[in-house]
């Protein structure tokens, strides 16, 4: 177990190192016009040279990379080009928003997806199964930005027009202002992010449960007179969870993308919206900071998922 953890962590570090190289290459090497962008159209060659020197862009590449990594390791991701705010501060401000959105949505989609999947699998071909499967397919095919807009149109705009102003059009209320406003502002974003993924998990759970329920040991358990409920939840679901955990690990990377879109649609000031703004402004330190931060988060979360996997399925530990 300890060895598994070590190997996995080393792999994660290699992954992070490679990502840092790629990010560096993409944003420092490819565009040679950072200074030009910063200096504006009327920049004189002297201004550009000065900017290059200030940003260290005149150093040899390997030196730039070394100082980039060195600083990043010390928690220094640089300052944004426009307001000279430390990138770490910008990220720190945005993280609670994104975390609220992502964790809430993940909980909703896992609960919803697994429950629906179990219902479908335990009553195959029933009306419930068919409608849940159809629902799942519908939401699975739905781009999240479209779902967000549809929810905004009906649940915010139409309801408010009809005199029921239950939902805000967007924005964020921190937990410090109370749980009520916090939840209220996040309900539609959560739904947007969760429904699309819940659909995928319904399909996954259904397939995986159907497989497990047809196995011999489940039949044996039934023939021993163990109650159906106990068979389903105690015996079958545990085995069926393994592929779901795997998928969850893979989806963590996708979650970042979903967050980006959802935050844009509902104007939530999280990492996603911050990144999009930074991108439109070509604010490189912020872009790199957020990409690195998000990648690290995904890698760490993946290690945690692998650990959960090893707990669920002891065979993994051997390989």
């Amino acid at each position, binding site marked *: 177990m300890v*060895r598994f953890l*070590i*190997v996995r962590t080393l792999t994660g570090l290699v992954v992070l190192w490679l990502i840092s190289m790629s990010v560096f290459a993409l944003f420092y090497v490819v565009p040679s016009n950072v200074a030009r962008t910063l200096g504006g159209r009327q920049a004189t060659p002297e201004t550009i040279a000065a900017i290059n020197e200030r940003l260290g862009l005149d150093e040899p590449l390997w030196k730039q990379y070394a100082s980039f990594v060195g600083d990043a390791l010390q928690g220094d991701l640089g300052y944004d080009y426009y307001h000279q705010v430390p990138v770490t501060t910008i990220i720190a401000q945005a993280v609670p928003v994104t975390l609220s959105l992502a964790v809430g949505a993940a909980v909703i989609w896992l609960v919803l997806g697994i429950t629906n999947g179990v219902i479908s699998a335990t009553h195959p071909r029933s009306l419930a199964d068919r409608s849940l499967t159809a629902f799942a397919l519908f939401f699975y095919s739905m781009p999240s930005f479209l779902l967000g807009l549809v929810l905004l149109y009906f649940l915010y705009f139409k309801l408010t027009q009809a005199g029921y102003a239950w939902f805000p059009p967007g924005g964020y209320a921190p937990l410090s202002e109370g749980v009520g406003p916090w939840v209220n502002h996040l309900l539609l974003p959560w739904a947007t992010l969760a429904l699309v993924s819940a659909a995928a998990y319904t399909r996954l759970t259904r397939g995986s449960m159907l497989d497990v329920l047809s196995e011999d040991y489940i039949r044996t358990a039934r023939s021993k007179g163990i109650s159906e409920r106990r068979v389903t939840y105690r015996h079958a679901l545990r085995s069926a969870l393994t592929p779901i955990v795997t998928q969850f690990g893979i989806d963590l990377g996708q979650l970042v993308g979903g967050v980006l879109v959802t935050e844009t649609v509902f104007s939530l000031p999280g990492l996603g919206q911050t990144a999009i703004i930074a991108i439109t402004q070509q604010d490189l330190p912020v872009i790199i900071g957020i990409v690195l931060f998000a990648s690290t988060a995904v890698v760490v979360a993946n290690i945690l998922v692998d650990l959960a996997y090893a707990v669920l399925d002891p065979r993994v530990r*051997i390989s």
Partner: protein
Amino acid sequence: MTASTAGSTATPLLEARAVSKEFPAGGTSLTGRATEVLHAVDRVDLEVFPGETVGLVGETGCGKSTLARCLARLYDVTAGEVWFDGRDVTHLSRREMRPLRRDIQVIFQDPYGSLNPRRRVGSIIGDAFAIHDLEKGAARKARVQELMELVGLNPEHYNRFPADFSGGQRQRIGVARALALRPRMIICDEPVSALDVSIQAQVLNLLIDLQDELGLTYLFITHDLSVVRHVSNRIAVMYLGRVVEQGTVEDIFDGARHPYTKALLSALPTPDPDVADSREHVVLSGDLPSAVDPPSGCHFHPRCPRARADCHEQQPPLEPVDGDPVDHTTACWHPLAHGESLTSAVPGLGIPAPEEGEP
């Protein structure tokens, strides 16, 4: 039993010289090296002379299929040499092996696994021609259909898929594929053990007929002694990666020296009920030990009813027992005398009682 036993003066067509094959086993350490080694084949010498059939017999897991794959150069050997037609082929590269592939072919055990399910039979059998750039177009098709005839398949089924055939028919496809290049040597890796007993005889007879017709040399691998008796001139018995006894069919069946050979023979079904009743049944106790950590000395000692203290210490050499012909060799410190029965040899040495209705 088609060809006469070759004289010892002839050059072997296929020869293993102290061949060993090890596999990494167990987990890998942090540095990526295997923590344990499985000794699948351990310094085996074997000669197959032109025109004869050598039967290689042993329990599942004794390394006989691994040896076959080493001899066919499907695996690289860990140590030792493989000779073909008087030439050391141990270290030939894949490219250098290509011309030799026309001379050595393999018939595989699993008629389901050995045929690509996505390809038509004609293309499977014709694969050899495609790989060696031999016949093309209509000529290739004619050759393939000729081969199908030869092995008793309907050539009209040229365009069918393996799934359309029964196990016996699939094995005939495998035979046709092996014959395509007109090889001199065919290694048959348990060619009938996956088939129904009723089909086994048909395929065996086909192999024997083909040997007559085409002058083939066979190395015939099986765990079934009755099959070997049917097809072989000489027999080598393997146990845990080593050859423990080798000789002509008569030597082995009538004058087995090694207790392991004797035990295998005693498990053979006999058509005559009187003989069956009077014959001793020896049930080997225990399972085949792990080849990762084989027993010391003679590998067979933990299961051997005749085992004594010295058997633990040193590996017995494969040599003729006094009075045996030079080509009947046995690796045993305490070989059986002629006609000696295994049970009477050393009484009270822990042989399980004969079982009624043994399978």
